[in-house]
């Protein structure tokens, strides 16, 4: 409980500091809107030219896009310490101070940054979700809401876990490794479309290595009434748990890496 209170308190302080430069903040928020708006525009234009993508209708595509951008940017907003700042913490030796304090390192890293500019990206995602839900005429039930919530939370854990891989690399080699971007940003780009349209190697990559298919596509496809690969309903609630598994596994690696951490500070 104490940890959550600490996290909320840090978020409040960080928000205050972000608001010290209102014009810069506004411009950056608009820049984020252009970015995510551009991504969504690409989906709209694709629908305009191609109408369908395999068995997926335009509404379905908007729904998939919305689920991906909401979970990805919620993670980027509240997990900024892991998704953005970590390489700097290692390079500058700031991580040292975190090792001294009587709190978990990951807790402190998460408490160290917030990125409220992402609010516009999340808004674009919510818009896409509403549009997709309307166009595909989703009949929302309690179970579907539950599946939706589970999918979001598990996807966020998965994304946080993937960014944490970068942090692990970072501790060992001090430099941020662009390679992991293929899983994180590549995963976002690829999996804003349903995974079954891709050839087998890519499908394997995003089902096993970075299981967005499990955390996002299985439940989303079921909510849309077109189960992925025709899998039964119970998979909808079991498959997303792979997000937790990935996060747990990487967290163990992270703790292991911390024991090998050699400071760069001066």
């Amino acid at each position: 409980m104490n940890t959550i209170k600490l996290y909320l308190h840090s978020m409040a302080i960080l928000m205050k500091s972000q608001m010290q430069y209102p014009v810069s903040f506004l411009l950056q928020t608009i820049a984020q809107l252009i970015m995510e708006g551009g991504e969504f525009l690409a989906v709209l234009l694709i629908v305009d030219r191609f109408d369908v993508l395999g068995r997926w209708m335009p509404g379905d595509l908007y729904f998939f896009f919305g689920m991906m951008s909401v979970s990805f940017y919620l993670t980027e907003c509240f997990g900024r310490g892991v998704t953005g700042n970590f390489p700097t913490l290692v390079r500058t030796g700031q991580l040292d101070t975190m090792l001294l304090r009587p709190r978990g390192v990951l807790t402190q890293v998460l408490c160290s940054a917030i990125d409220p500019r992402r609010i516009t990206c999340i808004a674009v995602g919510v818009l896409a979700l509403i549009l997709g839900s309307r166009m595909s005429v989703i009949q929302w039930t309690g179970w579907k809401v539950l599946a939706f919530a589970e999918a979001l939370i598990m996807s966020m854990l998965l994304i946080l876990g993937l960014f944490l891989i970068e942090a692990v690399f970072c501790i060992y080699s001090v430099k941020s490794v662009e390679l992991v971007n293929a899983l994180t940003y590549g995963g976002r780009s690829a999996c804003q479309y349903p995974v079954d349209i891709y050839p087998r190697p890519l499908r394997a990559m995003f089902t096993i290595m970075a299981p967005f298919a499990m955390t996002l596509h299985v439940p989303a496809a079921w909510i849309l009434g077109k189960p992925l690969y025709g899998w039964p309903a119970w998979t909808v609630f079991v498959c997303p748990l792979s997000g937790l598994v990935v996060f747990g596994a990487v967290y163990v690696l992270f703790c292991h890496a911390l024991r090998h951490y050699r400071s760069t500070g001066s």
Partner: protein
Amino acid sequence: MRTKAYASIFRMNWKLELQYRGAVLGGIICQIVFGLILVSLYRALYAGRPQVMPIETVSTYVWLQQAFFRMILSSDSDLVGKIRTGDIAYDLVRPLSLYGYYYVRIIAQKSMGSLLRAVPMLVFALCLPRGWGIMAPVSPAAFVCFLLGLMIGLCCVSALENITMGITMRTLDPKGIQAMLNLLMMILSGNVLPLTLYPDAWQKVITALPYAQLLDAPIRLYTGTRPVTEAPGVLLLQAAWTVVLTGAGIALWKSNQRRLVIQGG
């Protein structure tokens, strides 16, 4: 004398860019994964609804965009820091124009940065089967036009970059406006979605904008979307935008220099 100075600045920055070969490898692999994802997506779309433009053209477009990604998105991070610390004073003492100095630097960075990545990526794309990778240029003449267009595009993107820098110099906020202009560039230069897949009516407007002159125009010459007979017109439009943007940039930097405050002491 001047040209000799610029040539040596160019050489120095080329060599500087060559120093980070290790970091390049990760970037190349990441860019290749992105290329594969995009090509797979467009192939899946084509399977449902074939288009007038063949899939080979789209996959070639994607690979060329990915290969020269670094040409579009890379900027000189030193300049803003120099203004903030006051080190810009050293640059002002040089017997060269400030604009020219940074123009040569950015051209060197962008050309070396993209060559280092483009060559291995294009070799990889050439090895992929037809319709997945990159096709050969439609004719030798088209290839020559493509290379010419690419060079003008490089000058054009550097001129654009210097305008962005000029605005950053005024606001001293590299994150706000710079980010916004860069993202606009990603969308309107065909990186997010090939400009050839935009609605036909939109393309008439978008291809006339400066952002389409960077990579879209040369790629269209390479794939034959614009035939060689139309090449002079394409290249001329590119060159015209480059001249306009360079002129605007020089004017902006001149006025910036007058109001520049040297910080620190």
